[in-house]
C-alpha cells in the first residue's frame, strides 16, 4: 500500500527526514508519533504527493514518487482519504457540500452522493449543522467535517493528521471507534497523533519520529 525507501526531505537546506524506510500493508493500522515539527505531516504530505522526497522513493497505491505524472496525481488522491491537520475545508461551501465535494470530484451520481453524505453526517452527529459554513462551526465540528470528507469515499488508505486535536475525549473515542471499524473492513490507517491516551486505549503498531529517524515502538 505505502512504501518509503530511504526517503530524505529537507526544507531550506535543513534536513527534516533522514533516510526513512517503512511499509504499511493493506488493512494495517499505524500510529505516527513524534514531537512538534518532527515531520509527521511531511510524511503524510509525501504520501498524497503534495511534496516529494529529496532522495529515495515514496510509493502510494502503486504510484511511485519517481514516476508519477501531474495528470495521475488527482486519481491517487481520490483513492486516499486525508484528514488534514488544519482541516482545509472550502470556506464558501456548507457542511454537506464540503463532504460531498470529494465524491463529486469522482463523478459519482448525485443521488448516491446524497445518500452517502447524509449517512456520514448522521454518523458524526453533524446533522443540525448540515447547512453551516465552516466559519459557523466550532473547532471540533470543523474537524468532524474534515473527517467525514476523508471517509465518505471509502478510501483504500486513510491518512489522519491529528484528527482529534479539537475533540473532547468522548468524541475522540467515537472517532477512533469509527477508524477501527473502517480499518476492520480493510482500509489501512496511518494516524499522526499526540494523544497517547488514545494509543493506549486502542493499541496498534506505532512509529516514532525522532531527529529525522523513524523508530518502531
Amino acid at each position: 500500500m505505502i512504501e518509503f525507501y530511504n526517503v530524505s526531505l529537507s526544507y531550506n537546506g535543513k534536513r527534516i527526514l533522514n533516510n526513512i524506510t517503512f511499509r504499511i500493508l493493506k488493512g494495517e493500522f499505524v500510529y505516527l508519533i513524534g514531537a512538534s515539527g518532527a515531520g509527521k505531516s511531511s510524511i503524510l504530505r509525501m504520501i498524497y504527493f503534495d511534496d516529494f522526497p529529496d532522495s529515495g522513493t515514496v510509493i502510494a497505491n502503486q504510484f511511485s514518487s519517481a514516476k508519477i505524472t501531474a495528470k495521475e496525481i488527482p486519481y491517487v488522491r481520490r483513492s486516499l482519504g486525508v484528514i488534514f491537520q488544519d482541516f482545509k475545508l472550502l470556506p464558501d461551501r456548507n457542511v454537506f457540500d464540503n463532504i460531498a465535494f470529494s465524491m463529486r470530484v469522482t463523478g459519482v451520481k448525485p443521488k448516491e452522493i446524497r445518500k452517502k453524505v447524509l449517512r456520514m453526517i448522521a454518523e458524526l452527529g453533524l446533522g443540525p449543522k448540515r447547512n453551516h459554513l465552516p466559519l459557523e462551526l466550532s473547532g471540533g465540528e470543523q474537524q468532524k467535517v474534515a473527517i467525514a470528507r476523508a471517509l465518505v469515499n471509502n478510501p483504500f488508505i486513510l491518512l489522519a493528521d491529528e484528527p482529534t486535536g479539537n475533540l473532547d475525549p468522548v468524541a475522540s473515542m467515537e472517532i477512533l471507534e469509527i477508524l477501527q471499524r473502517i480499518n476492520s473492513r480493510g482500509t489501512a490507517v496511518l494516524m499522526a497523533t499526540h494523544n497517547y491516551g488514545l494509543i493506549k486505549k486502542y493499541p496498534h503498531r506505532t512509529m516514532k519520529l525522532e531527529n529525522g529517524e523513524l523508530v518502531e515502538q
Partner: protein
Amino acid sequence: MSLLFSIGEGIRGMGKARLAMTLSVSSMILTLLLLGSYLIFALNLNQWITDLREKVEIEVFMEPEARQTSIAQVKQALEKQPEIETVQYVSKADAAKRFEEEFGQNIYDILESNPLPPSFIVQLKEPYRSSKKIMELAAGWKNLPEVDEVVYQKMLLAALENYIRWIQLGAVAAGLFITIISISLIYNTIRLTVYARKDMIYIMRLVGATERFIKRPFLVEGLIQGLIAAVFASLIVFYGVKIVKTFIYPYITMDNRIYVGMLLFAVGIGFVSAGLSVRKYLRIV
C-alpha cells in the same frame, strides 16, 4: 451532466464571491462602454467622412459661347458615364449669379454682355471620389465638343484625402489601443477575482479534483460575467444612443452589430481570461 454540474458550480461560485463578481462585472461593463463608445464614434466618423466626400464636385466649363447642341451632347455623354451620380447644368445666367455672390458686383453693371461660360457640376459615385479617378475622368471629358476646361477642387480633395487618411489612421490606432487596453483590463480584473480564491483551488486539488474539474466552473463564471456585462453595457449604450439622438445629435448612426460585437468580445475575453487565470494555480508542484 458534468457540464451541467460545472455550470451550477460556476453560478454558485459567483453567488459566494458576490462582491468580487460585482466589482469584476462592473469593471467589464465600464470597459465595454469604452469600447462601445469608440465603435459608435468610429461608425459616425465614417459616416461624416462619406458625407464630406459627397461634397466633392467636378466642374466642366464649356466655351463661353458654346452651342446648345454641344451642351446637350456633353450632358448626354456625362450622364452615360457609370461613375457619375448626378450632373447639374449651370447656365450663363446661373454663372452670372455666382459672379455677383463672389465679387459683390453685378456683371451687367460692368459689361453689357455676359462673358461667363456655362458649365456642368458633376458629382461622382462613392467609390470613384478619389483624386486619381477624377484626374482620369477629367482628361477624357476635356475632349468632348466645346469643353473648355475641367476644374475640380484639386487642393480641397487632396487635403481631404490627406486628412481622411490621417483621421482614419488615428481612428484605427485608437481602436487598437482601446481594444488592447480593454482586453488587459478585463484580464487583470478576472485574474484578481481568481487570485482571491487561490486557496480554494489548492484545497480542491488536494481533495483529488482534476484540472478540468476545477477549471470548468471558472470558465463558466467568466462566460457568464461576460454575458451579464455585455447585456448591461448594451442596455446602457442603447439608451445612451437614444438620449443623444433625442436631445443632442439627431444624426447619430448606430449599427446593431456593435451589440453583437460587445457580446462576443466580452464572453470571449471572460472565458479566455478565466482559463488563463486559473491555470496559474493549477500547476502541480
